[in-house]
């Protein structure tokens, strides 16, 4: 390598990161090893700097930002309606949930009411999305531990859910189906049958995964007592979602601060007390069963009615009205050119995503564009416990620990 290209490729100087590694690394007693950003078991573009003593991990230094797309900055330059399209791209395994939390924030800011039918459909879709996200987690987590077949089964069932999402919005993943004030449009007629079909098939499929993994001797050895996280550590590191519940703290925003009518549905918040990788596995498996229960209740009492707020200052009128009403034409034109203008102020809305507390801080200056949007993403916060729980484990177990936190790099880097 010639002098110039070496200069342009130089990494952060050793002095800058010296304080992150132990003295033994400086003396050459331990090995510093780079893992990622292109690595099959880091679940995306995550780079880790490992300090190893033989095969034992002494220290892990995560390096994130490889998938940073500047969504927060870009959202400031778009109207509230157009910015909603970017929300799907943040956590690409929880697209409906991202739409939901953004819309909840806008609705809180603008004081908009959402009709009951729209709320029920939102719940059905976010719970289906939760199952789909847990299926990706389960498949890849098992794959990391050497169980190839689970991956194929999980992705088979995930297709059912993506088909339902496609049925509603025309897109498998990035649908932006949930909009401020309600939904884009009502669900198609075949929606109910498709959801019921999924509900009929899926519980038996969870039993299949159970049979493959829960008592599997290799899986038990690889997960039990690995990566133990105490409840005190979990709370002081701000961990939420399944990792927190796996450590015995029953905190779930769907129960404690219900949104979109979650208070109507009967479900339990599964917890385990061990705090290890196996406990987090059990929590997520039980969450899938609970999500099935919620969807079942929601589809059984799905109310009829409109799916969009009739506040014309925020939600554009139905297409049919444009032919007969001059006001409707004016509202339509204003909303799709200038956009709506919520009052000045700031709000914080949070939902329970498959990974934990997903929050949006939204600030308005009274103009049609958001003044500031901050995404409090669960992966970004949960990821910080990786160095803590991976001290002293083997490199092979580190792979299991990355999987058990269930990070999505789009969610970390935004």
């Amino acid at each position, binding site marked *: 390598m010639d002098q110039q290209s070496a200069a342009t490729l130089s990494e952060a100087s050793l002095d800058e990161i010296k*304080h992150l590694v132990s003295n033994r690394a400086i003396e050459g007693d331990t090995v510093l090893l780079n893992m990622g950003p292109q690595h099959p078991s880091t679940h995306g573009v995550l780079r880790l700097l490992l300090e190893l003593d033989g095969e034992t991990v002494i220290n892990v230094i995560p390096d994130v*930002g490889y998938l940073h797309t500047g969504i*927060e900055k870009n959202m400031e330059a778009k109207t509230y309606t157009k910015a909603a399209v970017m929300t799907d791209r943040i956590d690409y395994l929880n697209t409906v949930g991202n739409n939901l939390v953004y819309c909840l924030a806008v609705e809180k800011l603008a004081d908009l009411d959402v009709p009951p039918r729209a709320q029920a459909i939102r719940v059905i879709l976010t719970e289906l999305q939760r199952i789909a996200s847990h299926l990706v987690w389960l498949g890849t987590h098992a794959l990391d531990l050497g169980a190839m077949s689970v991956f194929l089964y999980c992705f088979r069932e995930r297709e059912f859910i993506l088909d339902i999402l496609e049925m509603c919005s025309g897109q498998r993943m990035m649908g932006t189906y949930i909009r401020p004030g309600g939904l884009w449009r009502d669900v198609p007629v075949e929606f109910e049958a498709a959801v019921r079909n999924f509900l009929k098939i899926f519980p038996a499929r969870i039993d299949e995964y159970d049979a493959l993994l829960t008592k599997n001797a290799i899986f038990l050895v690889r997960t039990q007592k690995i990566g133990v996280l105490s409840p005190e550590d979990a709370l002081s*590191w701000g961990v939420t979602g399944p990792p927190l519940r796996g450590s015995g703290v029953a905190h779930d925003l769907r129960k404690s*601060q219900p949104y979109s009518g979650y208070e109507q549905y009967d479900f339990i918040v599964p917890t385990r007390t061990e705090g290890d990788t196996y406990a987090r596995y059990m929590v997520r498996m039980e969450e899938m069963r609970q999500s099935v229960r919620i969807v079942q209740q929601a589809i059984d009492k799905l109310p009829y009615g409109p799916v969009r707020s009739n506040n014309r200052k925020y939600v554009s009128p139905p297409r049919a009205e444009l032919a007969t009403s001059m006001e409707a034409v004016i509202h339509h034109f204003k909303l799709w050119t200038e956009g709506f203008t919520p009052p000045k102020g*700031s709000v*914080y809305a949070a939902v329970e995503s498959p990974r934990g507390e997903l929050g949006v801080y939204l600030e308005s200056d009274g103009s049609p564009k958001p003044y500031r949007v901050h995404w409090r993403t669960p992966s970004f916060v949960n990821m910080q416990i990786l160095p803590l729980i991976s001290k002293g484990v083997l490199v092979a177990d580190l792979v299991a620990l990355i999987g058990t936190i269930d990070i999505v790099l789009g969610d970390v880097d935004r």
Partner: protein
Amino acid sequence: MDEHLQSAVDALKERFAAQVSEFRGEVSLILVPECIVDACRALHDEFSFELLSEETAVDYWPQETPRFHVVYRVRSLRDNLILGLRVPLNGITPVIPSIVEVYKNANWFERELWDMFGIRAEGHPDLRRILMPYDWEGHPLRKDYPLGYEEVAFSFNQKEIDDRKPFAKE
């Protein structure tokens, strides 16, 4: 307002001269930078706000001084409460005391604060950029930082524009 929240708000008002604001049922306290660590410690130890939900900032340039507001949100699981804190900061290179001692997950939030807004957290153990490349210039979420765009090149000024471009040269 919930009585537990009221007692926490009253205590902070009295001890740190905090101002209270309420919007859409959300309570925020406005504090001065010097007392943010003590205020967080009081909330954490005495009023059981165990979780730091978020820490971020807003840039009001050029309309307002102080230019920045650092925004914190703490959550109590015991009493099921959420409370916002806001700290106004002025200057081009503002500094805020780090709350890593109280809430450990503030670590990456404060690195992001430095990366995106150029607000230094004093006493932070590892203040490096987190999302942008380590040699990046500027702090992208500031309002005086433009959204990236390409200048329109014509035959007479193509070379001039090309020379200015930091990357992606043909």
